[in-house]
């Protein structure tokens, strides 16, 4: 499931909703991303997330389908917020549920690595010196490329 929203969310409620009535789920791996109060050694007072409505949801849906093709998942959830957020605020929540932990852990990491480089979101950080757009990090591209170069992790947990 994909949700792109301005509103905050409750992690416990989201997990409950994801697992409700699905007792074949054996484990859920989750990632919760928060607004940091520092960037490149300077304090951050606020962060505004801009996105491309419509395309964002499409890209996230594609990433979710790809994860479901690679791993035996029972449920997945991606929530991404937009708008102006403060340090400590929740930005993104990713959950992958499966019968066993390996698929859940790996799919969760895959979803986060992919959404960072493929979902059309941009971060604007505010600090004492004004506002500055966050620059894309090469390490994020490398993290994603890892899944493309070597699918052995996926193969390992896929039923033969």
């Amino acid at each position, binding site marked *: 499931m994909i949700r792109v929203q301005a509103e905050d969310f409750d992690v416990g409620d989201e997990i409950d909703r994801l697992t409700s009535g699905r007792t074949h789920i054996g484990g859920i791996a989750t990632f919760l991303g928060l607004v940091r109060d520092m960037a490149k050694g300077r304090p951050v007072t606020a962060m505004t997330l801009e*996105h491309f409505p419509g*395309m964002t949801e499409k890209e996230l849906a594609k990433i979710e389908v790809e994860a479901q093709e690679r791993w035996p998942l029972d449920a997945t959830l991606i929530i*991404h917020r937009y708008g102006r957020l403060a340090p400590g605020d929740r930005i993104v929540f990713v959950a992958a549920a499966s019968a066993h932990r390996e698929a859940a852990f790996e799919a969760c990491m895959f979803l986060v690595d992919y959404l*960072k480089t*493929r979902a*059309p979101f941009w971060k604007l950080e505010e600090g004492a010196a004004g506002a500055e757009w966050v620059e894309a990090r090469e390490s*994020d591209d490398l993290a994603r490329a890892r899944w493309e170069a070597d699918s052995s992790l996926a193969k390992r947990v896929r039923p033969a």
Partner: protein
Amino acid sequence: MKLLYFAWVRQRIGIAEEEVTPPANVATLGDLVEWLKGRGPGYAAAFANPGVIKAAVNQEFSRPDRRLSPGDEIALFPPMTGG
């Protein structure tokens, strides 16, 4: 065609979207960016380094050699920084 701008591309140009009719020699996405560069200082600043600009045609990521049609919706933006 309809153009959409995001993040610092939007800020440098000063508008979020516009309708344009480029000349006939603008056939590809790469041509479009080159043509836009000549439309004013804001555009020149936004597209000073076209190699970093990402683009989506009708909400699909597209490369500079992608051919364009008059009814296309083209979004131009910096590398994404979500998550």
